[in-house]
């Protein structure tokens, strides 16, 4: 009896994974389909990838995305790590917890319109810089969450030991604390980068007009909404591949983060 229900459960799990991955695999398969449409397989082709790499709007959107992701990740990682250390070693309070958690809870559309309103109020011109400013907001929350988890998982008496052995606070921070939380910091950075690369709504609202500040997700949205072309499949496959690779490395760096 137990075995039969276990078999049922295993079957369910397999079906679940199928449900999760078939759409993704279909997209990947289609990206190599000469016809580009799901109706019929007309043969293997890299045509769509080729078209992708020669389409200027796509290339510039990709470049913009990278710039935004890189800068916002660097800023978020630095500020977020400092913040996490500060909160865990000094100022633990539930008010702070709420503030730090908020960016992950507020619906992105609400955050997007809030930021747009704010920038408009300040009469600020919009562009890649306004996207970066906005992305740092949720990236910080993410880095803080990851680094805080790391900080709770090591023996804090090594910090006291360092002080006892004569190290200044800064030396303790640099030589003992940072190495101890390094995996968390790196994982947080990688995950932040991924989030930023994929983020659509906030970018859409805060980018302003103009091709010069279009990011890849914005480009993808336009392509989906206003005319599905087969290049999207190729794009989708590449973007997924990049994301998966980043997450793979993030998990290798800090296994504990994923056992939350």
């Amino acid at each position: 009896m137990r075995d039969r229900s276990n078999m049922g459960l295993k079957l369910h799990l397999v079906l679940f994974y199928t449900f999760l991955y078939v759409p993704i695999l279909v997209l990947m398969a289609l990206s190599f389909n000469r016809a580009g449409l799901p109706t019929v397989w007309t043969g293997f082709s890299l045509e769509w990838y080729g078209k992708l790499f020669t389409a200027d709007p796509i290339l510039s959107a990709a470049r913009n995305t990278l710039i935004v992701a890189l800068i916002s990740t660097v800023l978020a990682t630095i500020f977020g790590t400092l913040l996490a250390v500060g909160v865990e070693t000094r100022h633990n309070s539930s008010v702070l917890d709420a503030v730090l958690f908020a960016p992950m809870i507020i619906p992105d559309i609400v955050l997007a319109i809030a930021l747009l309103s704010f920038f408009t109020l300040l009469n600020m011109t919009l562009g890649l810089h306004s996207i970066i400013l906005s992305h740092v907001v949720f990236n910080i929350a993410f880095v803080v969450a990851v680094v805080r988890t790391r900080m709770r998982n090591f023996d804090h008496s090594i910090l006291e030991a360092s002080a006892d052995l004569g190290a200044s606070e800064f030396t303790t921070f640099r030589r003992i604390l940072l190495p101890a939380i390094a995996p968390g910091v790196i994982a947080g950075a990688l995950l932040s980068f991924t989030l930023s690369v994929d983020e659509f709504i906030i970018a859409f609202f805060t980018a302003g007009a103009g091709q010069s500040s279009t990011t890849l997700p914005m480009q993808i949205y336009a392509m989906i909404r206003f005319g599905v072309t087969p290049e999207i499949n190729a794009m989708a496959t590449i973007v997924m591949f990049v994301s998966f690779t980043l997450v793979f490395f993030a998990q290798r760096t800090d296994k504990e983060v994923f056992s939350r």
Partner: protein
Amino acid sequence: MTNRLKSVILLGPGLGWLALLMVVPCGLIFTYAFFERGIYGGIDHVFTFENFVRATDPLYLGIFLRSAKIAFLTTIIAILIAYPAAYAITLAPRRWQTGLLILVILPFWSNYLIRTYAWIVMLNREGLINNTLQGAGLIDEPLSLLYNNFAVIVGLVYNYTPFVVLAIYSSLNRINVETIEASEDLGAPAWTTFHRVILPQTVPGIAAGGVFVFVLSIGNFITPDLLGGGRLQMVGNLIYDQFLSARDWPFGATLSMFLIAIMMGLLFAQAVLANRAAGQRGQD
């Protein structure tokens, strides 16, 4: 270096950023809800409650309700799919479990738009599902699977079920195996052990996952936009419209307030339940 200075260095930049670029903007739109719409869009600084009144108009209430209904269905379906999946994972050999979990969460790390787009490909009239069904002779005409409530729910379930799996897995994992063994020792058959010993202990995980899915679904914009074909309005689309087409920022702000209020209410309720559950378990 004084303690105070150290605190400022550590907490200053991060908190400052969040304060300036999250707290202030959110506070700003909170105030917008109380103002009137300007003639060419923008804000007329005339204090009014009109927006709140308007938000309770049956038209808009209908949209809120529809969003809630869709979110609720999504949540139920997600839980029904996730629970057996999470359970199956706990039965797998220990060393596989992390890998299995990563496989569950991996799709989440691809682009949300692309994941949603994949369902356009799957569900459209010439899409994979229709092709397969027609090819197998099960239907003659392609089914209209896209640009309706069904598609939106499929999209939402697809995107958020992994979270529920993780939440339920986490709470299944915490169960003391000996309670299950005790139940068997005292004579309970498998199903009874499940619904009287295992299930109750996983309620916090179900609640956490469920609230998470509901909250993310009700405020969702992309899925109803792409899979609903732009005709189907949920709260997220409504807010988007108010800001970009209708240019009625105050009203958009008001709707956002309502949305946040619903979410906070749910999260608060869930936190209270979680606290009580933790209290009953002793310590955690």
